């Protein structure tokens, strides 16, 4: 696949936008029933939220100016995108630069994940998440230590829930993929120069913060950002923005030129 293929794709997107902006298409749209369903990753503390106000919205019958404005934005962005792509491609031809070879693996695997999350949500009404299943499994441990806890068993289910089995499946799937590719091997640290005990300590602290953050937000990269993003939940996009707003400075700070010889995350510097 060469880069110019993006141009026609943009045209398709614009054509779809114009077709879908037609009032007929809107009238067919069904009202979406709200509620987190039986999902284990749904935020258990959201009872305070006004659930009904966002759901009981009557079907629109007249021109909605928000739609018109958004249609214009779609067309402007699409037109701008096409102009950008064409100008870029022309410049590339003039300079006789070699055509870009695209590594399609990230896109192909990502698209397959998109199909997977569609099936998970549409057929099974379950978000495709990890952190929720971890919470269900941890709940069994937590209840064994503190049986009178008001969170496990009340706000979220515990034990071998749907999400917990997804976690087991992910482990098995990655194992199968690694074995079939011949890349499976027991390794104590990632690629590169590491101080093992420091990497392990950093990994433990980081994983603790990650699960804590995921539990506060109500899902992790897959359960909230992806499973929420595909249904256009605003929380998913707020979550992703916050994730990068905090992650980008962290990554650059850890990798700063003046870093110690052994960094905070256990990697050996130059």
């Amino acid at each position, binding site marked *: 696949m060469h880069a110019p293929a993006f141009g026609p794709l943009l045209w398709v*997107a*614009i054509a779809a*936008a114009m077709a879908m*902006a037609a009032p007929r298409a*809107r009238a067919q*749209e069904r009202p*979406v029933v709200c509620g987190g*369903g039986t999902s284990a990753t*749904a935020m258990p503390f959201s009872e*305070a939220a*006004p659930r009904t*106000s966002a759901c009981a*919205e009557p079907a629109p019958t007249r021109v909605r100016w*928000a739609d018109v404005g*958004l249609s214009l934005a779609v067309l402007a962005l699409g037109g701008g*995108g096409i102009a950008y792509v064409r100008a870029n491609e022309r410049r*590339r031809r003039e300079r006789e*630069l*070699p055509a*870009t070879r695209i590594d399609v693996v*990230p896109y192909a*695997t990502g698209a397959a994940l*998109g199909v997977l999350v569609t099936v998970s949500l549409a057929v099974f009404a*379950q978000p495709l998440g990890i952190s929720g299943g971890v*919470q269900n499994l941890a*709940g069994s441990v*937590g209840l064994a230590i*503190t049986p009178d806890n008001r969170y496990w068993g009340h706000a979220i289910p515990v034990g071998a829930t749907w999400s917990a*089995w997804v*976690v087991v*499946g*992910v482990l*098995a799937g*990655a*194992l199968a*993929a690694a074995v079939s590719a011949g890349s499976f091997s*027991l390794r104590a640290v*990632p*690629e590169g120069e590491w101080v093992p005990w420091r990497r392990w300590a950093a*990994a*433990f602290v*980081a994983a*603790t*913060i*990650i699960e804590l*953050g*995921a539990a*506060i*937000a109500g899902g992790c*990269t*897959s359960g909230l*950002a992806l499973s929420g993003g595909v*249904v*256009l*939940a605003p*929380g998913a996009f707020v979550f992703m923005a916050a*994730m990068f707003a*905090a992650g*980008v400075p*962290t990554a650059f700070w850890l990798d700063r030129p003046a870093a110690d010889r052994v960094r905070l995350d256990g990697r050996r510097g130059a």
Partner: protein
Amino acid sequence: MSVALPLALGFLFGWLLERAGLTRRDRVVGAFRFTDLAMLKFLGAALVVGAVGLQALRSLGFVAALPVVPTNLAADAIGGALLGMAMAAAGFCPGTIVAGAGTGRLDYLIPGGLGLLAGALIFGWTAPSFMPALARAGALGPATIPRLFGVSGWLVVVLLTEVALIAGYAAERHAGRRRGASRAHVPAAGARSPSRPVAPTAARSRS
């Protein structure tokens, strides 16, 4: 509850995470330094395909109800910031900890797995004291952007697709230019700075 279905979904998910290379620490950290955009391409492609697919299923009447994650703006922002910070430092997220453990990475399996357990335990023990108040701040319930702003879902989906396509194009162009600049015989390749910061904007607009 059937066990086979979630197991199969998880199996495919884990397979894809490993195939996309997201069980490698460098790849996840690279996404936050914009040196390796594979994770952003992976997430962006999944978001677009899933959003278009679900919107199509809804429009065609195949799906009446979808589980929508409730939005709690304050909790989402705080949780996302905590997760993003730790993810950029360690190079994994909950999904890739589990997948990485499956590929034989002991630092994912043992400290990573114990950390997940510890985090979930700490949350379970402390949540009743702070979570109700935090979840009330900016709580929108199971909202979606189209319902929140009263716009057509298709327009939002197409807008998302356009942003992703343009970002993807910019990312591939940038990569091509960098490769082109490294070849000495290509004329005029040095005329353009190879480190033009295209990737950060591309990556940010995706998220």
